[in-house]
């Protein structure tokens, strides 16, 4: 191996960065990240919606209209998921960007490449996320659903308050996967002219014929973005887990321990007719006076 090439590489990179760093590479990174973040968020929302719809409980005794409606929803979702998961994103972009004007004689078309890019990456992410969300929901103990049902919650309330928060935590690694894949794979949007970080490489390399130094910048750039993403996702997971410890609330000296309250003969803890209430009140008063005296002596 020719180690002497390294100083040469460093020099080339420095040259490229000085000339194209901000205009091409950094702005490309900005666009890549924006697209990845926005599309991942929208994709998650699509996935969550699909997950909720797919897991609506249905039994044989439901009215036929409800069963038919649910069956239609499941079939439509199935087709959406299979089609968008099963075809390359690069072709989906072409289909939507060129297909719509083709079939509508140019009357329906997207003027903004941003809109198309976000749309394509979002529905693609959504198709993958729908399955992840479904898995996340299935992973939650059925007891959680029963607990929620038993206090009268509807399916939607159960999902929003109990199941999805837990499912979402469980599929965070999957969301992270999708986000990182999106950071890299948004580069295929060049097919419809989206100038992301990878497009910057093609522009610069085409102008200067410095393929390898530019690719090195790309490699380092992508790795930096994905490492930061990983780090942020880990941090979010930790935050979602919450603290491992908890504070005991200062026990009210009037509260008795389990098993001795609400006794009809004694009245409740807060009942002033209760003997225990008065002894405890007196004790509390004595302690308070004692503390005050102690404070006075110290002064």
């Amino acid at each position, binding site marked *: 191996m020719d180690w002497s090439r390294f100083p040469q590489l460093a020099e080339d990179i420095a040259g490229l960065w000085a000339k194209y760093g901000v205009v091409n590479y950094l702005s490309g990174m900005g666009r890549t990240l924006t697209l990845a973040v926005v599309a991942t968020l929208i994709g998650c929302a699509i996935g969550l919606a699909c997950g909720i719809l797919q897991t609506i409980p249905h039994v044989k005794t439901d009215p036929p209209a409800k069963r038919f409606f649910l069956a239609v929803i499941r079939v439509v979702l199935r087709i959406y998921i299979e089609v968008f998961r099963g075809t390359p994103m690069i072709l989906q972009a072409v289909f939507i960007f060129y297909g719509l004007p083709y079939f509508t004689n140019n009357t329906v078309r997207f003027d903004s490449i941003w809109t198309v890019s976000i749309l394509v990456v979002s529905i693609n992410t959504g198709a993958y996320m729908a399955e992840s969300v479904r898995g996340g929901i299935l992973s939650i103990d059925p007891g959680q659903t029963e607990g929620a*049902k038993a206090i009268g919650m509807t399916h939607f309330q159960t999902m929003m*308050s109990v199941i999805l928060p837990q499912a979402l935590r469980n599929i965070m690694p999957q969301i992270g996967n999708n986000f990182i894949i999106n950071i890299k794979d948004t580069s295929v949007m060049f097919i419809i002219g989206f100038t992301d970080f990878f497009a910057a490489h093609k522009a610069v390399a085409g102008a200067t014929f410095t393929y390898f130094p530019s690719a090195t910048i790309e490699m380092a750039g992508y790795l930096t973005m994905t490492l930061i993403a990983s780090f942020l996702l880990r941090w979010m997971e930790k935050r979602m887990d919450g603290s491992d410890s908890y504070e005991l609330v200062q026990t009210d000296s009037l509260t008795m321990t389990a098993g001795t309250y609400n006794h009809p003969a004694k009245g409740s803890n807060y009942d002033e007719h209760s003997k225990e209430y008065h002894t405890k009140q007196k004790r509390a008063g004595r302690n308070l006076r004692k503390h005050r005296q102690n404070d006075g002596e110290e002064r």
Partner: protein
Amino acid sequence: MGEMILEIRHLGKSFGSHEVLRDIDFTVAKGDVTSIIGASGSGKSTLLRCVNLLETPTSGEILYHGKNVADRGVNAPAYRSHVGMVFQSFNLFSNMTVLKNCMVGQMKVLKKSQEEARASALKYLDDVGMGPYINAKPRQLSGGQKQRVAIARALAMDPEVLLFDEPTSALDPEMVGEVLAVMQSLAQAGMTMLVVTHEMAFARDVSSHVVYMNQGVICEEGAPSEVFGNPQKQETKDFLSRFRSV
């Protein structure tokens, strides 16, 4: 006898060809504490789950204040909000603190304000002796503590009747006492309760009515003194003889 809350009429439940419950008939009046006892697999839990519509009965009626809730098209969530349930495995929401567990139903289902929900949650948590633990997550509690929170969660919905599905069966022996003490004080306070239990002492001393189930049918029922003191059927005698110490 007080006002009828629940009337179970000819209730039957099959899982496929397996008939779990057959022609079950009994009533729950206001203030009743009914214990359902019987061997494992006799259909006790399925019966309780049918009463709460967590299982759909295959036949028969469940009349709640005279209205059949086992009918199609009945708003099951609305009915369940009047009928509390405490599970063997607690089923506390693991993503919420103890306090939130007792507030969420009041806010989402009963549409109470946050302050109202908090106040009543704190009251019931204090009642079950869990006041100091409101900031804990369920995973940080012992089994007995979890079950007491689960009872507070059910009580916070201000139910007309409270169903207990073997509330102490998943607990270590030293924690059974604290949960039974809470249930006993509820019974004394006049709560209407339907309890599936293996705690014969509780069934005998606390309940006002005992139902002995065997192989999916009610074999014998009556006041605790009758069922425990002078069982009529051979099956009941055999079953109770296994709890000689009681």
